């Protein structure tokens, strides 16, 4: 009596396995800080990843009709829980690749402790720490936002392009300010510019007159201000104008805030300009994605990192499709193939077209909503930096730098 039961069980098991092999379902993990300090940002970011998941499944599925499934884990935007979340995804859920995490500390810890040793591709949509560039990651760690260093480098070129050769730099004392100011200084001096003063300051003080008096020495043409408008930025601009120390300001995305115009007035900022990460100039795919996002989720397509989250998920799906299996090393090797030029361009929402091209053996190049995502040797992307000026009570983009 025992034998037949065993035989039936065995054959059922075999059949189940055969079925599994025919239409392979694919799980991809995502580490998000659902609870914790970034909780407010998460819902639209998570929705964007889900939209990518839905796009893949609506477009005929992955690996010959399999279901593409996103497994969400909570990394709480801190190192310890992100490591724990990643190890569960990689080892228990057996995901093919990991999208995330969001903050740099969580991303680097999860990569070093989990995805790199286990040989799993990890793509962060948002981590900007310069430390990721030269990490010993066996080519398993990527990100699709430029490093903090990049904006500083581009800003140096924008300022020199404007014919300004002598500036003073004021920056806020956190990873944002320190990162951008450092690379700005290095590149500006390398390209022949002169920095007359270089001062960091604490956020949210009432008076910056002392720092400004020091910075005004040496006859600088403008003040490069790397700070948040709501923190120290607007106050510094105001106090400089009141004391007649500076009348021309160069800011980054932290300062490019409508709040600044409200507090200082557009007239006073007539000669000032600002840099900020932006999307490619002509981006119909991005616009279409935003429209679809708002249709499905009601609102939120303009929230931070929605584009990046969608693109990171889509890039992973494309890499899996190109790899032809859930073999983790093959997926890693396929990422550059689907993301970088050359190849036929595919964009958000064009999953079916991409699958068809890959099936024909053609090379593809995913150009996303957030940029063209050309990975360099370190797994970094360059991205686009826009130059903005004040117009009325808001800002206008007048040039795009790469």
């Amino acid at each position: 009596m025992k034998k037949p039961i065993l035989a039936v069980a065995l054959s059922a098991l075999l059949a189940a396995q055969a079925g599994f092999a025919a239409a392979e379902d694919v799980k991809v993990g995502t580490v998000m800080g659902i609870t914790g300090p970034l909780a407010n940002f998460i819902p639209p970011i998570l929705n964007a990843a889900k939209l990518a998941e839905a796009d893949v499944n609506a477009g005929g599925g992955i690996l010959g009709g399999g279901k593409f499934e996103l497994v969400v884990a909570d990394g709480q935007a801190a190192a310890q829980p992100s490591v724990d979340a990643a190890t569960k995804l990689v080892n228990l859920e057996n995901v093919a690749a990991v999208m995330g995490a969001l903050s740099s500390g969580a991303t680097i810890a999860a990569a070093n402790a989990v995805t790199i040793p286990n040989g799993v591709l990890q793509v962060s949509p948002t981590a900007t720490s310069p430390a990721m560039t030269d990490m010993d990651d066996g080519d398993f760690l990527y990100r699709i936002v430029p490093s903090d260093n990049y904006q500083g480098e581009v800003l140096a070129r924008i300022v020199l392009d404007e014919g300004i050769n002598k500036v003073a730099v004021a920056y806020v004392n956190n990873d944002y300010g320190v990162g951008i100011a450092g690379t700005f200084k290095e590149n500006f001096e390398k390209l022949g510019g002169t920095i007359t003063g270089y001062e960091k300051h604490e956020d949210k003080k009432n008076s910056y007159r002392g720092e400004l008096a020091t910075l005004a020495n040496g006859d600088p043409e403008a003040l490069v201000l790397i700070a948040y408008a709501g923190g120290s930025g607007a106050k510094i601009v105001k106090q400089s104008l009141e004391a007649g120390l500076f009348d021309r300001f160069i800011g980054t995305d932290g300062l490019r805030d409508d709040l600044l115009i409200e507090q200082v007035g557009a007239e006073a900022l007539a000669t000032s300009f600002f840099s900020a990460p932006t999307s490619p100039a002509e981006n119909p795919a991005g616009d279409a994605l935003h429209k679809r996002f708002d249709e499905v989720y009601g609102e939120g397509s303009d929230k931070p990192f929605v584009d990046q989250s969608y693109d990171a998920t889509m890039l992973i799906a494309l890499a899996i499709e190109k790899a032809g299996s859930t073999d983790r090393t093959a997926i890693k090797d396929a990422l550059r193939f689907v993301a970088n030029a050359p190849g036929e361009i595919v964009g958000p929402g064009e999953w079916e077209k991409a699958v068809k091209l890959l099936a024909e053996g053609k090379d593809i190049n995913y150009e996303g909503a957030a940029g063209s995502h050309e990975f360099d040797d370190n797994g970094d992307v360059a991205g686009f930096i826009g130059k903005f000026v004040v117009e009325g009570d808001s800002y206008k983009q007048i040039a795009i730098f790469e």
Partner: protein
Amino acid sequence: MELSGMLFYLVSFLIMGGIYSVICLALNMQWGFGGLFNAGIAGFYAVGAYSAAIITSANSANHVGGFDLPIVVGLIVAGILSGIVGWAIARICVRLKADYLAMASIGIAEIIRLAVINEEWLTNGSLGVSRIPRPLEDFFTGRESELVFFIFVWIIVAITFWVAHRLYKSPWGRVMRAIRDNEAAAESVGKDVQSFRIQSFVIGAIFMGVAGALSAHYFKFFSPDATEPLLITFLAWVMLIAGGSGNNKGAVAGALIIWAIWSMTEIITQQLPPDWATRSSYIRMLLIGLFLQFVLQRFRAGLFPEKAPKLNVKSHG
């Protein structure tokens, strides 16, 4: 779910569980033995982590060092520096009553956190220290390196446990318990209460620093967001209270059980429909809270209550 996946989840679980065990044993030396309410564990953990990171990482232009020294040296320096910080704090605060010591230690931990964020020359500020090595990295890569690190962590846990066990059984441990239970009585038989308390605080601080060093090597990167008090101080307290303060086995068991609840509840909540993803994370926090309530209500003295060793006094007659 494949078997090797289960195994490596377990390895990873036990690495984190081991690091928490060290913190928990250290807290037991302070609170369980001596009744010292340290609410600034994250501060000592940070001192240890940054010391080890700076001592062992390769030379960097972003912060002082790194000195590229062996990991054992890093661990020892982490313990010593953390102990010195503990000593300085103990000198000032240890005379305070339990609740005041708690407040003072929170303050100290916050000062350390601000120093870490602001003193860029020392710690690279909010950008963190990277390229921190792991033991035997040249010989083992990939999953093998996880196994090696797992063994390394549990050797340290064993050493910490041994030290804690010896201390607890020794005459020193008896004095600490006497001070904890009745300070006036201990003083009346001629024990220097303040000096014993300082010793207990410093020894605990040393091992908290060692635990920080282990984390830095595990993540191979250390930035201020890994010193979140909720994840270090609060969790360690819950672990020790649930496991049984005063009992070293309880400290390790508490660390592993609470970390298991923390980690494994997500496996359950992940089975909920994907649309629930955001909500399920909060449900998980609720589950953790409920379970802690259960343990704390059901086992007042912890899962492994303190069992003081019998005095080995031979009766004459």
